[in-house]
């Protein structure tokens, strides 16, 4: 992609750092969140709609 001009090195670096930041933010959110309530183990196996 770099050799045929489809992308520039600076663009790829920016994309990489954006993705890294997003993943790190998701990691932080996950580790900072409390563990789920065991009482919710059966939630969302099925929808709440017709036939539920």
């Amino acid at each position: 992609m770099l050799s045929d001009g489809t992308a520039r090195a600076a663009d790829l670096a920016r994309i990489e750092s954006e993705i890294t930041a997003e993943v790190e933010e998701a990691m932080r959110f996950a580790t900072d969140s409390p563990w789920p309530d065991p009482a919710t183990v059966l939630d969302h196996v099925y929808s709440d709609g017709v036939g539920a």
Partner: protein
Amino acid sequence: MMRELTFTAAAREGLSEEMARDPAVFVMGEGIGERGGNWATTLGLYETYGPWRLRDTPISERGFTGLCTGAALVGGRPIVDFMFLDFLLDAMGEIINQTSKMQYMSAGRLTMPLVFRGSIGVGFASATHHSGNYYPMLARVPGLRVVVPATARDAKGLLKTAIRSDDPVFFLEHKAVLNLKGPVPEDEYLVPFGEAAVVREGIDVSVVAVALMVHRTLAVAAALEREGVSVEVIDLRSIAPLDIETILTSVHKTGRLLIVDEDYAPFGVGAEIAAQVMARAFDDLDAPVARLNGAFAPVPYSPPLEAAMQPDTARIERAIRDVLAE
């Protein structure tokens, strides 16, 4: 007098009504476009709804099941028509590992409004690759719903409920009931999931049956009535969710229970019902819960062998007499 339709015509009317009501509903499968479906499931609909909504596919079950799973996640309401349910086996990885799990994995952010339909059942020398039932296997997958109507009325009402459900639903059509006619209301109606039907009331023994076995059990019950034996017949209609309450109410009255199911006995519908009845109605039982099932073998092609493996009226009658003699 109410009009009568075949099972297939009633289901097709339900499909057409839902396609007219909701432009997100579409069908994919082999031969379901201009040809109208191997079982006439879509006959005549192509002219109204066209090739985009009646989408013929190559022989690629896993591919079009995956495609429809994706479509269901982003607003479509696909119906996968497997023709013979046996062909679902080629899509099993997709169905169990993706379709059935997405709502749970997304904590309910995603829904999966997807209907799978296909013919099931023994009895037409269709041989082993075209005669399977599979509903116990499907009913034990969390996230899937499984309905097996036996009558025209229930075929239409349950298919409409299946199309409107946000869950993946298997709508299974026994080959031997497709051409049976029955009364179908003119006005719109739905048949809810998880409600068995007491199709004949009786006091001596309860018989729970599925699909074709409902009709055979009703014939036996009518014959036994002439000698004073009163058989209550329950059409299960919905395998998952299972309506155990209707069965418990019946067993409370009769004290005896037989489950007639042409599918295999081991780990099957009868085993599940028996376990639940034992747990909740042990004191109501005057006899052990009994099962009558198809033989535990791949379905043979040879008609005499095939007939030998499926419960017929003689075997159903003997099984009812055995339960009464306990």
